[in-house]
């Protein structure tokens, strides 16, 4: 009777997994469909409204016109050029931000003296709205690529720094003790205990950092650029081409989601052990 608890739990798990397939096939496709339903209805609705002539769709172009704009840009080769420019900036800024954030976060997390020295300054800098750096960066680094990449790197730096430091500080003392019992050296302790323990939070901080990177690339490109998706936005505004603005926004959404997904997929093999990841995939 005492062994009931695990058995019960097991059987209920089994029941779940055996009962799951039949409705889950429906659920697997139906559930994401539910999310698409609202935007789809709105898009089709707006398309109809314009098509039936109730609106000229000049300021809010219908989906077909946005799509046509994207195709047009793609055909002329402009789209590839703008995407490449933007991706390059995000990529470089992200790389610099991640390297700096990881290094300083790791030092502050691992070494409490460094944390006391460093962290208050970093936190103070973090309190500054990052866009406030723009004029200074332009003065220091010029109007071209360097200042843009620096701005993106600053945006990426803070979430990564905070994520790494917080993750190291919250590593379970009990697990570290297991490492001590087996007499791990300093480097072995880092490699075999700290790194794997920190990884889930690190991946989250990378994703947050990347999100901010995309945010700041728009800011950087709005300030002054001759190419890039942000430039498309600005150009669309100045020349009164809302379809081009919306096209750029759609591409931002796709690229942002895609790069985020890339991080998630790249991290997945290392995080299979986690409860949460398996469940999130199943849901």
């Amino acid at each position, binding site marked *: 009777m005492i062994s009931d608890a695990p058995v019960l739990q097991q059987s209920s798990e089994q029941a779940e997994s055996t009962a799951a397939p039949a409705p889950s096939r429906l659920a697997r496709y139906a559930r994401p469909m539910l999310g698409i339903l609202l935007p789809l209805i709105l898009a089709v609705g707006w398309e109809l409204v314009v098509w039936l002539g109730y609106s000229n769709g000049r300021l809010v172009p219908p989906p077909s016109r946005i799509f046509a704009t994207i195709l047009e840009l793609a055909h002329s080769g402009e789209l590839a050029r703008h995407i490449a420019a933007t991706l390059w900036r995000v990529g470089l800024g992200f790389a610099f931000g991640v390297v700096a954030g990881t290094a300083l976060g790791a030092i502050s997390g691992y070494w409490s003296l460094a944390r006391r020295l460093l962290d208050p300054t970093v936190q103070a800098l973090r309190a500054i709205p990052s866009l406030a750096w723009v004029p200074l960066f332009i003065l220091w680094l010029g109007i071209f690529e360097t200042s843009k990449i620096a701005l993106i790197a600053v945006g990426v730096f803070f979430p990564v720094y905070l994520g790494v430091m917080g993750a190291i500080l919250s590593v379970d003392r009990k*697990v570290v003790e297991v490492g001590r019992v087996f007499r791990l050296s300093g480097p072995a302790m880092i490699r075999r205990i700290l790194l*794997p323990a920190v990884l889930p939070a690190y991946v989250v901080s990378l994703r947050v950092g990347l999100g901010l990177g995309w945010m700041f690339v728009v800011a950087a490109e709005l300030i002054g650029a001759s190419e890039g998706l942000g430039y498309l936005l600005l150009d669309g505004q100045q020349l009164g081409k809302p379809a081009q603005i919306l096209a750029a926004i759609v591409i931002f959404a796709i690229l942002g989601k895609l790069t985020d997904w890339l991080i998630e997929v790249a991290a997945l093999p290392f995080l299979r052990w986690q409860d949460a990841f398996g469940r999130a995939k199943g849901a």
Partner: protein
Amino acid sequence: MLALDRVSKTYPNGVQALARFSAEIGQGEIIAIIGGSGCGKSTLLRAIAGLDRASAGTVTLDSEAITSPHAKIGIIFQEPRLLPWLSVADNIGFGLADLPAAERRQKVARALERVGLADKAEAWPRELSGGQAQRVAIARALVPQPEVLLLDEPFSALDAFTRRDLQDHLLDLWADTRPTLILVTHDVDEAVVLADRVLVMRPRPGRLFDQIEINLTRPRDRNSPLFENFKRSVLTSLDRSLDRNVPDRDATQGPGQAMWW
């Protein structure tokens, strides 16, 4: 032989957890340490493990002073403390990183077999029940073949049925290489089932109060009258260790101080 010589521990906040604890423990002996809460059982165990240093006194294993974790001393904690990112097999092999892969795999496979979890080798720790996880922890601690194995209330978080099961299992594993076992527990039954000698501790500050030899052959019948006798004498000793303590505590602590706790 493991020798504890007047081991004392005072924490930085002034609490004296352990006062001049001395004992000599022979190779292969099974010792149970029992006592009321706050009697310094775990403190003592951590000092033997080299995880905390004693404020005074020495722990020596075969005339080698123990001040930090030692290869010949293993420990099993109250929780399994498995590394969640390693498979069951890799958890068991965690302390064998220095061995060649083939030898390690072989030892791990044998240990898995021995604790009856051969089919769980590739499972993640989260997929194990509490009892299974603790068996993996036992295997992990035993696989490097320590001379001394410390157990800090290893079965207290398990249900009574699983606990009995694991106690028998532990004895079975112990018989393979016969390491010295030092088991901290607050379960009298567990102490009498497992130990050659029960050390009763007395709290505040923790010190040795009584020793009871358990002269019963193994396997021990939990229902025999002799077993009951030993249980009763341990219980009596435990009661006395706590009763005697009452006037002591009143004498050393004013009424105001008690309010802090």
